[in-house]
């Protein structure tokens, strides 16, 4: 082995051949230019990507980027010009297809070109702030092809024509549309908007303006809305199929404006088919459609709501002021409930439970219910009817439903204190006559009232129930201790009522029959024996009695009568004939009550246990009464007494009104004093406002009445006027 001579390992700098060839850039460009031609001629398969890339790379590297770029522009432009001409030459249907195809080709080509020129894209272009290749390709396409004078307008018109045909029911090539429109989108939103969208919207507006005018002349409201809805859906679907999603709102706005907004008033007020007609006939589907369509337009829903509100108010107003309706309170209230149910249903099914509509309904009810001053009385009568018989045999759930509905009406009342007065009266009658269908139902309603109005409202009512219970116990005690000595005498059932809890009844004179007096006295002493310091007074106008009577041929009947009636009938145990005057003297019952009492005993068919001469309906001072031997009835038990709650007569109504007004005075004064005590000084308008606010849960105070109370308080030195500012009042401690 010979030793090698040691050589220094040197790495020499790589010296590549300096290209001095001046034709280098031109030659290289020619290669690339040729490649671009081939690409555009669908001959790309024969090209070597790597070689082309390297050539482009070298050009850029050797500082020939400018040449490369401008060459690209020139070449591409000339190809696009050719393409543009071929598109322009396309006839009819082929136009779009040709455009579509060439666009696809261009994109493919562009991609390849971009890949080849990627180095330039990444280095030369950014540093010289030139447009990148891809974008350049799009821009050139836009400028040369799309915006060629012939093509630009033709393209737009063709697209709009297709849309028009599709709107008229023709089937068009949606895929093609999508591609073309996507092309416009790819060219930039400015192109999409200026070359297509804004014209599309304009033309659509014209189209729908015309169509809606035709429809409105020829269709009824329901049909029109169906058509409008259909068109709206169509447009939405159209956009989703072949347009930019951002056009959705724009086109729907156009349809909404032309088809709905322009014709809103006319639709709503259309005779025989407009909103009112739909409401009256419960056309839920049409109403729902109207709601959904109008909701899209500003003020659309408020128009619907306003028309509905004024219709409900009118209907309600008619209901509450119709003299026919006012004869039957129970029917009156039932109709109110039916009206509420109807509109609740409409709002739920057609208006999507919209709160603003609910509020409009509520305010309408509040408005017209309070137009009739007797609404509180009638609602109480309705409840009375239900609790006396209407709810018999009804399930607990259904009872709750009815009571909740009553509460709903109650809430609308401005004069809740009037309702309270009547409710008390009616409840008293129900309790005393033992005529309540369900104790649970009664209690349930009291609880609801308490929840709504607070403890004070119902404390007296609860007191009434307590009295009833206590009376039961008292009677048991009475008979337990006195049972034997009473023996054969009449059986007594006493309800002891605490004054203050029960509605005040002025107790009138009445001479009870001797048999009754006895046992009553025994009860009185028994009671006062166990409750010293109390005072008892017999309420003869509120009692009932069961009498056993034997008539002419031996028929026996049990008569259920009022206390007054009992007093009158018992007289006939000792006389066959009595004049009015004699009866009046003997019983000392007040004239008007006595007359009514005698009428019920002598003038009502099937209940005439007395006979009157003459046989007239009215009771005259010199009428004579006879025990009616010939009285007949199919039933053994005959009910003659009436202590049932009834609609008040006018004079009674006036009286109650007056009592309510009297009751309100101290409440107003208390409110004034409360307010002034805490505020010390306050001006007139603010006092009125505060007082109204404080009392609104019970009633709406009259400003004139408030003023009068203030003056009364000034006189009694609770308040004084401010010496300097005459509008102010001052609290006097």
């Amino acid at each position: 082995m010979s030793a090698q001579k040691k050589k220094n390992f040197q790495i020499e700098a790589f010296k590549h051949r300096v290209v001095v060839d001046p034709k280098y850039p031109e030659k290289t460009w020619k290669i690339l230019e040729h490649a671009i031609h081939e690409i555009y001629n669908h001959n790309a398969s024969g090209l070597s990507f790597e070689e082309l890339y390297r050539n482009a790379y070298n050009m850029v590297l050797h500082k020939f980027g400018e040449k490369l770029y401008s060459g690209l522009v020139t070449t591409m432009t000339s190809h696009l010009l050719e393409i543009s001409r071929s598109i322009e030459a396309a006839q009819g249907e082929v136009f779009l297809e040709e455009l579509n195809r060439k666009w696809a080709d261009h994109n493919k080509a562009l991609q390849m070109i971009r890949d080849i020129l990627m180095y330039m894209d990444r280095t030369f272009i950014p540093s010289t702030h030139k447009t990148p290749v891809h974008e350049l390709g799009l821009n050139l396409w836009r400028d040369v092809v799309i915006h060629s004078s012939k093509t630009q307008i033709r393209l737009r018109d063709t697209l709009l024509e297709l849309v028009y045909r599709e709107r008229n029911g023709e089937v068009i090539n949606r895929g093609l549309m999508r591609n073309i429109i996507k092309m416009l989108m790819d060219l930039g939103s400015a192109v999409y908007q200026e070359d297509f969208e804004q014209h599309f919207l304009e033309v659509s507006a014209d189209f729908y303006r015309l169509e809606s005018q035709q429809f409105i002349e020829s269709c009824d409201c329901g049909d029109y809305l169906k058509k409008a809805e259909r068109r709206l859906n169509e447009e939405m679907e159209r956009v989703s199929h072949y347009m930019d999603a951002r056009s959705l709102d724009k086109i729907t706005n156009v349809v909404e404006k032309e088809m709905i907004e322009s014709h809103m008033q006319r639709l709503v007020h259309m005779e025989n088919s407009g909103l009112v007609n739909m409401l009256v006939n419960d056309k839920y589907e049409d109403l729902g459609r109207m709601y959904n369509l109008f909701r899209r337009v500003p003020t659309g829903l408020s128009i619907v709501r306003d028309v509905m509100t004024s219709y409900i108010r009118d209907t309600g107003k008619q209901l509450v002021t119709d003299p026919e309706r006012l004869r039957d309170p129970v029917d009156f209230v039932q109709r109110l409930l039916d009206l509420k149910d109807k509109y609740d249903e409409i709002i739920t099914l057609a208006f999507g439970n919209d709160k603003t509509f609910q509020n409009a309904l509520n305010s309408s009810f509040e408005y017209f219910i309070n137009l009739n001053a007797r609404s509180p009385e009638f609602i109480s009568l309705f409840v009375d009817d239900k609790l006396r018989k209407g709810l018999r045999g009804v399930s607990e759930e259904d009872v709750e439903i009815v009571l909740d509905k009553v509460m709903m009406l109650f809430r609308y009342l401005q004069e809740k204190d009037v309702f309270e007065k009547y409710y008390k009266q009616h409840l008293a009658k129900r309790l005393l006559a033992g005529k309540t269908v369900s104790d649970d139902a009664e209690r349930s309603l009291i609880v609801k009232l308490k929840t709504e109005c607070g403890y004070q409202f119902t404390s007296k009512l609860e007191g009434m129930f307590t009295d009833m219970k206590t009376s039961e116990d008292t009677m048991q005690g009475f008979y337990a201790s006195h049972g034997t000595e009473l023996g054969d005498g009449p059986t007594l059932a006493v309800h002891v009522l605490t004054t203050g809890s029960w509605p005040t009844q002025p107790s009138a004179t009445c001479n009870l029959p001797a048999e009754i007096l006895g046992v009553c006295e025994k009860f009185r002493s028994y009671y006062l024996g166990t409750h010293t310091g109390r005072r008892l007074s017999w309420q003869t106008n509120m009692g009932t009695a069961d009498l056993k009577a034997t008539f002419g041929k031996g028929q026996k009947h049990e008569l259920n009568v009022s206390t007054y009636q009992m007093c009158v009938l018992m007289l006939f145990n000792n006389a066959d004939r009595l004049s009015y005057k004699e009866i009046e003297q003997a019983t000392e019952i007040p004239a008007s009550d006595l007359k009514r009492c005698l009428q019920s005993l002598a003038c009502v068919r099937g209940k005439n246990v007395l006979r009157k001469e003459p046989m007239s309906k009215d009771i005259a001072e010199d009428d004579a009464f006879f025990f009616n031997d010939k009285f007949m009835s199919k039933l053994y038990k005959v009910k003659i007494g009436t202590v049932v709650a009834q609609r008040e007569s006018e004079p009674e109504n006036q009286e109650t009104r007056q009592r309510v007004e009297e009751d309100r005075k101290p409440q107003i004064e208390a409110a004034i004093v409360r307010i002034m005590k805490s505020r010390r000084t306050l001006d007139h308008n603010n006092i009125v406002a505060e007082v109204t606010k404080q009392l609104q849960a019970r009633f709406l105070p009259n400003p004139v009445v408030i003023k009068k109370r203030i003056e009364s308080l000034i006189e009694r030195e609770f308040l004084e006027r401010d010496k300097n500012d005459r509008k102010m009042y001052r609290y006097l401690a």
Partner: protein
Amino acid sequence: MIDPEGIETLCSDMEVDHTDVRILMLAWKMKAEKQGYFILEEWRRGLKALRADTINKLKKALPELEKEVKRPSTFVDFYSYAFRYCLTEEKQKSIDIESICELLDLVLGSQFHAQVNLFIQYLKTQNDYKVINMDQWMGFYRFCNEISFPELSNYDPNLAWPLILDNFVEWLKAKQS
């Protein structure tokens, strides 16, 4: 103490009718408490204030007194005094309509002729009020001063005017139409 008879004598001495408003003004100057009577203290007070020590000087002081009372700053005081002077019973707070009408005429008749006449007419025809209290009395004076008459253009019933005046204005307006 000077009793009603004595006052009558005084009036004839001064040659003034005893129902003349100037006697009331005199009572006011004296701050007399009881209608129809002047007690010594009050007498002295009044005469001293008027700088009179003879009946003649008293008589001559009357025009001056009138002028003083009619000045707006003092009239209010006189006006409210006039009402109190007529409260003869101990716990009395109001005066009957008849007397009020007379008093109004006496005290305000010359100054607010039209208003007073109409108000008196109203008071005599209405049924709501049988008496007038101090608050209403003072309210009327304010009314004459502040409200344009007979247009009533600046009257607002929503403000704190006594209710009787609200009713009066309503009555007036009904009458005018």
